[in-house]
């Protein structure tokens, strides 16, 4: 007996609500992260006296990773923090972007992190990110041991520091849903050699459409 239709309708409705909730959450939830070196801020990684500079070298800006803010964690030794100049240098073109953090900010323990606006840096570029102390007091840039970011390292006074800086690259916030294409691209790397972003679009459709349809199919033949 092909029954009962109401259960099938109820399952379809429940799944539709779930999918809708997911889409709304994805639209409401916004992310400003362009990309990150993934370095946990465990320790002061480079101490900068007035005029000194530290550079994280090299950094590959990934596809879809264009950014216009650099976020750092700074220790100020209990005093108002000095001005910090950020310069971003292309591997061949010299400085391609600049920005400055005004002095007077609080220590990492109180203020957390500092976001420094810079000119937009395009995706797919190889850059060095340098922080120069433009104030009169010392400052510490937080980071972790060198292994934290495998492909780059922090240099100071033409010497590797043995550490990596905690650098996070941001841009204007975007909804998580709008990032799905980029996420599919990224997820397709280091998987099966023949898959691409299309596989994740297909999986998305299967999970959000075929699974509810199958659940409806599952309850259609049940007894009352």
């Amino acid at each position, binding site marked *: 007996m092909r029954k009962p239709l*109401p*259960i099938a309708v*109820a*399952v379809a*409705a*429940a*799944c539709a*609500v*779930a*999918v809708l*909730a*997911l889409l709304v*959450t*994805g639209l409401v939830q916004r*992310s400003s*992260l362009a*990309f*990150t070196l*993934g*370095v*946990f801020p465990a320790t002061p990684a480079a101490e900068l006296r007035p005029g000194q500079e530290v550079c994280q070298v090299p950094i*590959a800006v*990934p*596809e879809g*990773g264009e950014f216009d803010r650099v976020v750092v964690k700074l220790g100020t030794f209990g005093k108002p923090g000095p001005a910090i100049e950020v310069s971003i240098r292309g591997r061949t073109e010299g400085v391609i972007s600049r920005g400055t953090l005004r002095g007077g900010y609080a220590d990492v323990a109180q203020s957390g992190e500092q976001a420094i606006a810079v000119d937009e840096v395009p995706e797919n570029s190889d850059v060095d990110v340098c922080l120069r102390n433009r104030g009169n007091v010392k400052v510490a840039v937080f980071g972790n041991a060198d*292994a934290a*970011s*495998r*492909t780059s390292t922090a240099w100071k006074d033409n010497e590797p520091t043995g550490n990596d800086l*905690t650098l996070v690259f941001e841009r204007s916030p975007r909804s*998580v849903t709008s*990032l799905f294409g*980029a*996420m599919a*691209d*990224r*997820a397709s*790397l*280091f*998987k*099966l*050699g023949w*898959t691409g972003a299309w*596989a*994740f679009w297909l*999986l998305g459709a*299967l*999970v959000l459409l*075929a*699974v*509810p349809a*199958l*659940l409806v*199919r*599952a*309850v*259609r*033949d*049940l*007894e009352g």
Partner: protein
Amino acid sequence: MPDVAAVETTGAVAASERRTRRRVPAPLAALLAVAAILGVAWALVLPAWQAPDENSHYGYVQSLVDGPGLPGVADHPMFAAEQGLASAAVNADQTAASLVTRPEWARSVYDKWKRTEGDITSAQRSDGGGPNAARSNPPLAYLVYAAPYAVASGAGPFDRLEWMRIIGVLWLLVTVAATWALAGEVFGPRPTYQLAAAALPALAPMMTFMSASVTPDGMLFALWTVALWLGTRMLRRGLTVGGGVAFMAMVGLACWVKATSYALIPGALLAFGIALARVHGGRLRLAVPGLAALFVVVGGWVVTARALARPASEQLSSAATANGLDVRELASYLWQFYLPKLWFMQDFYPSIPMLLPLFDVVLKGAWGRFGWLEVVFPEWVYWVLTVVTVAASVAALVALWQRRGRLDRGVLAFLATVMVTLMAGLHWQEYQLKISSGAPFMQGRYVLPLVGIAGLVAAAALRLVPARWRGAVLAVGLGGLFAVQIFALAMTMERFYA
């Protein structure tokens, strides 16, 4: 002389019935398709080696296939050079359990890896096999994974890992089908209850996540659920030589997957004893093959392990021979696990802020902690899931009580013994670790071998619902599980790729 037409008709009906019986019921087929889609989705979404101990399990298989053999060779590195290079290329170790870190997602780095991959030699694939975290596990699950690994041997490590994950999803399908069959034995062939039970392993995200990663746990869940079904079937339909041997061999086989499965043995012996007691005459003829099957299969592993100079049950023996027993201390530990700590008790969880280990460890961990357990739902979701779990458990108990006169107490005793033995083993292990080093041991995923019983609880709870509301409650349950599943997948995508 028999009526030929009647014989032909009877024969045709019997054949048709056999065909019908053999055909997979439509709801189960749909549920299996759901589990397959979700399993493959998890297998592809999860970055390489971003599930608990997946690097060790992969290293075990690589050591089996490419050499030097079973892992644990003292002077070898934990993983082969190839795995080390691949792991570094995708930033796996840095990403593990660290929410601020992402796997590598730059195409330029991927292209560079593809060039590196081409230069990897066979020697760099066989120089692992050292004492990695999975070395003490029995080899059966890894031997199964060895098949897709070997078939994809010409491809790179990421392809091999993905194929192992995808083949592992088959165990999820076995778990779903076995839960369906188990519910059929307990409630009779009632698709509503069977669907309610089997939907849990098919849709609960932690089951899909674990089964779709490279781990012996997927096979463990499957064999436990099949064993629960075979044991229940034996009790419901009566002991036969074939049924007894199949059940006991399955229990033995589970011991070839993980030492956890020794917890099945007391319940299995109890079920076998009850089934035997229900037989009138010829008990020896039925008892010997079943017991021999258990003895031969479990003994086979013990003998093999001895021959290979490996521990047959390292976790079990280390826990059994550890720091002895202080009854008051053990009681205090158990109290604190399930109930709020009282003022005079020694704190067993001093360094981990938590409400109750039962909630923070078991319920949260069994419902969903992904990646290296760092990807979690918002707190309120766990509260909702806990309320639903408690409500379903209470409803199932009420349903049991209402039908107490018609219950098969043998089945109840079997399932309860399996559940209690597993929990007792896990508690004993954690208690020993707590008093020796203070380290926690328990994780929510450790209770997932009981997913078949959890499915029965869901179905029993549904049975308590008045018939006219049953469909609606089932629909809400399926929709709720689907919601939890898709949010879990989305959270995991966002954590690793956004």
